[in-house]
């Protein structure tokens, strides 16, 4: 009897020890990116995963520049078979079908991908850069700061993810300044800073005195002409401290933390993780004002802060409009395209 009790105690101890050990062992996580991680979009995901790795939460490895010509499926299947990670993060834009096919075949792995489409049970979650709220706040600032009442916006492609950021910016700008006119130029390239700069210079020649740099290259044009600019995706003040007022910032940490917790606790299921990339959860924010802290009109800052608080408290919703910005199309086009 005594022996049995001892054995039970020992087993319990072992079991609890084993339980603790399993919890402490970091989850194996893989990142699968179509672009180089230097590209800002995938860079944000990579940064959050790197941070989780540094915090000892995950055991992280990644492959980038997988491209859009079929390699995504090969990479995902190899990783799922050989590495057998608990979670695969990545971006599915341009690779939607491949990602979804592989996810179906490996239901025990959590697939968490940037996507313009919906989640899929049991294991595919989606996220996106839902930073329209800080874009709207940036627009409020831009509308108040412009003296010529002309604001320039240079974007990559008119895809929904870009459109809703630009539309929110325009909404903020025209709300703060009903006379403000917003010029929108698309480059049809994600990465051509020289063309972006030329587009911005063209807008400056057309009267714009405040610019929203959805893409890299625009801030240089504003700086050269002593004008103000707003960054995008990350805090870009460092590029031109006298030029960059603020801008929307995307942070994937809340999404990554949530998914890690869900998987670790066994509660994971395919979800649209949109909320974790918005202001309420800290996934979106307005970049710090840096030196503009001292020079911006305090009333303006107070107005923006009040609106920001309303957004965080759930009292104000920024419209999500994914149509091509009105300025960039012929009248009537929106109804055809929409």
């Amino acid at each position, binding site marked *: 009897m005594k022996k049995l009790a001892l054995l039970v105690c020992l087993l319990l101890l072992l079991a609890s020890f084993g339980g603790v050990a399993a919890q402490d062992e970091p989850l194996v996580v893989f990142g699968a990116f179509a672009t180089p991680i230097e590209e800002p979009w995938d860079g944000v995901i990579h940064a959050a995963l*790197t941070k989780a790795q540094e915090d000892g939460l995950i055991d992280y490895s990644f492959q980038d520049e997988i491209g859009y010509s079929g390699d995504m499926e090969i990479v995902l299947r190899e990783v799922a078979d050989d590495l057998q990670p608990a979670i695969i993060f990545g971006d599915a834009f341009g690779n939607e079908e491949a990602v979804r096919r592989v996810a179906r075949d490996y239901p025990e792995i959590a697939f968490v991908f940037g996507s313009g489409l919906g989640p899929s049970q049991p294991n595919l979650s989606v996220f996106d850069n839902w930073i329209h709220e800080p874009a709207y706040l940036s627009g409020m600032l831009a509308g108040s700061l412009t003296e010529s009442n002309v604001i320039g916006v240079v974007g990559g492609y008119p895809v929904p993810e870009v459109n809703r950021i630009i539309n929110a910016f325009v909404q903020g700008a025209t709300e703060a300044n009903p006379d403000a006119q917003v010029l929108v130029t698309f480059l049809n390239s994600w990465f051509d800073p020289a063309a972006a*700069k030329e587009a911005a210079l063209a807008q400056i*020649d057309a009267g714009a005195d405040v610019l929203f740099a959805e893409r890299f290259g625009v801030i240089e044009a504003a700086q050269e002409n002593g004008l103000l600019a707003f960054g995008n995706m990350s*805090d870009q003040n460092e590029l031109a401290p006298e030029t960059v007022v603020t801008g929307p910032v995307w942070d994937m940490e809340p999404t990554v933390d949530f998914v890690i917790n869900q998987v670790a606790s066994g509660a994971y299921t395919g979800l649209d993780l949109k909320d974790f990339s918005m202001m309420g959860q800290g996934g979106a924010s307005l970049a710090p004002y840096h030196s503009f802290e001292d020079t911006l009109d305090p009333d303006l800052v107070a107005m923006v802060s009040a609106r920001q608080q309303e957004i965080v408290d759930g009292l104000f919703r920024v419209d999500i409009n994914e149509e091509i910005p009105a300025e960039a199309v012929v009248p009537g086009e929106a109804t055809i395209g929409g």
Partner: protein
Amino acid sequence: MEFIFTLLGATLRISTPILYGALGEMVVERAGILNLGIEGTMLLSAFGGFVAAQLSGSIYLGLATAIAIGILLSLLMGFLSITLGLNQHVCGLGITLLASGLALFLFRIIYGGESIPPALEESFPQLRLFSGTILEPVFSQYVFTYAAFLFVPLLAWLLYRTSFGLRLRSVGENPEAADTAGISVFRTRYVALIIGGALMGIGGAFLSLAQLGAFTHGIINGRGWVAIAIVIFGNWKPWRVLAGALLFGGLQALQLRLQAEGVQLPYEILLMLPYVLTIVAIAITGRNASYPAALLKPYRREG
């Protein structure tokens, strides 16, 4: 009226890197070598020049480095396609892939983990001529742009008025005859590659050291390929290459300005404009294209 002058100014800026690339490619092709390494050469030059300028604090050292990288990659092209006599398409594309990969790899080692692209404290300034006059927007350009226009007559003179130019053209047209006449085909082709590589290097450096003063991996974004099309458009002649570069740059400048002016046209049409009209222009002029006769043919002595 002001619109015209700012448009002209933008045309000159946008044409500059393409003109350097196209002039470099033209010299190389006139000697009988198609250098498809141009896209990668311009990228690695832009990157190397940027890194050198940032580390040394000297934009001139940056420019020198960009030129040196352009020459080195062209020498590699020469070793593969002239000395070893390998297929020029394959060698050129290989060099572009190598240089692009190398630029990204080194970028990650040096600047990895930064969320914004690295920028220079000081980049090449603009040289403003005719300040205060209506011509100011046209002549507010980087030194690179003014220099590019000087290279056009210089290369025309080199190709058509010097004995070196005659040798260069003859190895591109009929290397056997040139060899018989005592001209070293290999050496002449190598020299052409060196000149071409240096020009491509300057074109890359213009973007990273002058126009942007920053580096990101998409900085060339197909300008090398456009340059190759411009060479065909220009029928391998310096002045016509200049015209091609200005046409492409002008249409690009026009479409960006029409978008900014809020012209009510679908933006896709505006974006297509430079490419469509360039294709049309090539279709018209390309009918009389006179390729250097020995283009793409590695030279080997008989017997």
